[in-house]
């Protein structure tokens, strides 16, 4: 079974600084997808960034970027120029291809607090 591990229960960062959230996963598959989701106190799940395993290039979305290390099964999220609105729970998620039901498996989450 696939597992996703987020080893940092809580993180804090000063506004405008950079923070990296860690995620590792375990799978024997070669084709899969990885996601980072943000859940602010409103509890709405918001997609931050996605990565396809067969693409070597790291995904980037504005201030958010990932460091995808397929051999190491690592998928960390870097947030640059942190803003107060980035305060939220962040979940790393793994998805197997369609033939396995397109199911998402989530990590335990990391609470990120951005301080002014």
């Amino acid at each position, binding site marked *: 079974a696939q597992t996703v591990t987020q080893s940092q229960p809580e993180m804090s960062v000063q506004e405008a600084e950079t923070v990296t959230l860690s995620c590792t996963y375990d799978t024997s598959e070669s084709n899969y997808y990885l996601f980072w989701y943000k859940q602010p106190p409103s509890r*709405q799940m918001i*997609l931050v960034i996605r990565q396809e395993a067969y693409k070597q290039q790291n995904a980037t979305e504005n201030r958010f970027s990932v460091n995808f290390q397929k051999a190491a099964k690592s998928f960390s999220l870097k947030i640059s120029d942190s803003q107060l609105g980035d305060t939220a729970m962040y979940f790393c998620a793994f998805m197997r291809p369609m033939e396995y039901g*397109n199911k998402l*498996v989530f990590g335990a989450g990391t609470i990120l607090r951005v301080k002014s």
Partner: protein
Amino acid sequence: SAVISQKPSRDICQRGTSLTIQCQVDSQVTMMFWYRQQPGQSLTLIATANQGSEATYESGFVIDKFPISRPNLTFSTLTVSNMSPEDSSIYLCSVGDSDYGYTFGSGTRLTVV
């Protein structure tokens, strides 16, 4: 990406009763997913709902406790039956795929007293 309207946003229910949660999607989707998020924890998949067939439940979740309806490609309901305080959680529905990621409803915060 799809937009999901989930209702109710929150409810307080008496133990032994049932609550039905609705999700309406603004486009037709093949698969809908229902998740439970216990307080301070991550999301756990309850079941996958396909239109025209019975839902597929994950280990630890059964149809008698969490019956799911999927009458068409834009709508689904999840019922939490015979509730106990242990069912107090946030329940979320989701749709999507690998190309666009997954969209979630705004969640239903259920408190059982």
